[in-house]
């Protein structure tokens, strides 16, 4: 009976670990998707000549951390104490790096997106945001491909490891 219970625990543990890992990967992907969504909406807002304050304040998202980040950027900008919008954006991005950014490549893209939010002309902003969106999409694509590859290895390996452990213990 104890052996059966132990086997069940090991199986459940292996499945749980794999599922947690998958869940974390999915979260990272959806975070990237959320940034892409922000970039797409900014492209539209730029065409409407919306000010960066108004866009950030009215931006609607289920990602509370991104929403809070944008509101804080607005608050700091409205204080008119930063020499440029880029400086405020990058400072806040660094403060919230672990919560908002899935990996170093994405960090570079999001930091660069400041040029698109606070650029000198609409043409410059539009070109920059398009580059950022395309790079982010590429990043997401690569992440998905890597995840599919990892899934093919990690899931069978995890389950097999669990089975081996059960056999060894029995």
């Amino acid at each position, binding site marked *: 009976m104890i052996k059966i219970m132990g086997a069940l625990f090991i199986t459940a543990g292996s499945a749980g670990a794999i599922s947690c890992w998958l869940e974390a990967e999915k979260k990272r992907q959806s975070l990237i998707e959320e940034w892409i969504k922000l970039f797409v909406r900014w492209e539209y807002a730029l065409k409407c000549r919306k000010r960066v304050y108004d866009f950030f304040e009215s931006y609607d998202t289920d990602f509370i951390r991104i929403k809070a980040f944008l509101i804080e950027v607005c608050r700091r900008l409205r204080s008119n104490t930063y*020499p440029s919008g880029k400086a405020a954006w990058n400072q806040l991005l660094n403060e919230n790096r672990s919560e908002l950014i899935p990996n170093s490549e994405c960090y570079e893209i999001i930091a660069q997106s400041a040029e698109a939010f606070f*650029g000198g002309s609409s043409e410059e902003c539009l070109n920059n945001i398009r580059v950022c969106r395309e790079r982010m999409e590429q990043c997401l694509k690569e992440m998905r491909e890597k995840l599919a590859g990892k899934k093919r290895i990690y899931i069978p390996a995890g389950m097999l490891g669990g089975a081996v452990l059960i056999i060894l213990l029995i």
Partner: protein
Amino acid sequence: MHLKNYLPLKIRPEIDEELLKNAEEIRLRAGWPLEIIFADRRCVRFSVLSEADIRETFGFLCGYSPYAMEEEIGRGYFTIEGGHRVGVSGRAGLRQSGISDIGALNIRIAHEKKGCAKEIIPFIRCGTLLKNTFIFSPPGVGKTTFLRDAVRLLSTGDEKNPGVKVGVVDERSEIAACRFGIPQNDLGPRTDVLDNCPKPEGMMMLLRSMSPQIIAVDELGGNEDIKAVELCTKSGVAVLGTIHAGTVLEARQKLSLSIAEETLQFIEIIRQSDGTRRIRIYDKNNGSPFYNSGERRRDFLLA
């Protein structure tokens, strides 16, 4: 937001907020001291500004969103919260995107001076008749301030006369200082504002949609504006407008309206050397005023 918060960070500790309340203009030029100019032409100077200070201030003024002001900057100015107008000069690249390298800024402070237009209201509204009235003066004398208060008074009405429906076409957001379409300045309870809309189109839109009794517009001048004014007056709607002109003849020439003289009048605002304003009102086409405010108007001076 207080005006002080738009100025360069290094200058802010030097400036007293009370000082700005009485100011008419703030001038910033790279390589020169910041200047605050008052109604009586008194000028107070502060530290010398660098190019970086001008860039920084420009960022503050346009809400870190210069792209959103591209069209306006192409025309040489843009309007900020509160209806203050910011004039821009520097290296002009008109075919691309207006002024690219900004060397100087001039903030013209909008004032909401309630009651300053009280004197002219009986001339605009004579019983049930509403006269087409055009306020003129050289730049910076207070046409928009007068217009804003006239709109408020006409819209509010008084014990004898009920308020009238006023439509305002606020092309540069200077009259109403709208934020998200809602006026931040007091324009009275019967005023509808069309913000950020070209004057000719806006006048027609208001005429068709809001059934105004008076349409108020700032800075008339273009041929399209004049055509729209004529159309409004011929549709039974009075027009209250402002125009840049030094004399009544210039104002008449600029407008060259083909409407009945009896329904037309011009109001001249004159700045005195001490900053006070006087008013002259003209109706007939003879170049001499039928009304000349004797006393100097101190309500323009904030002291």
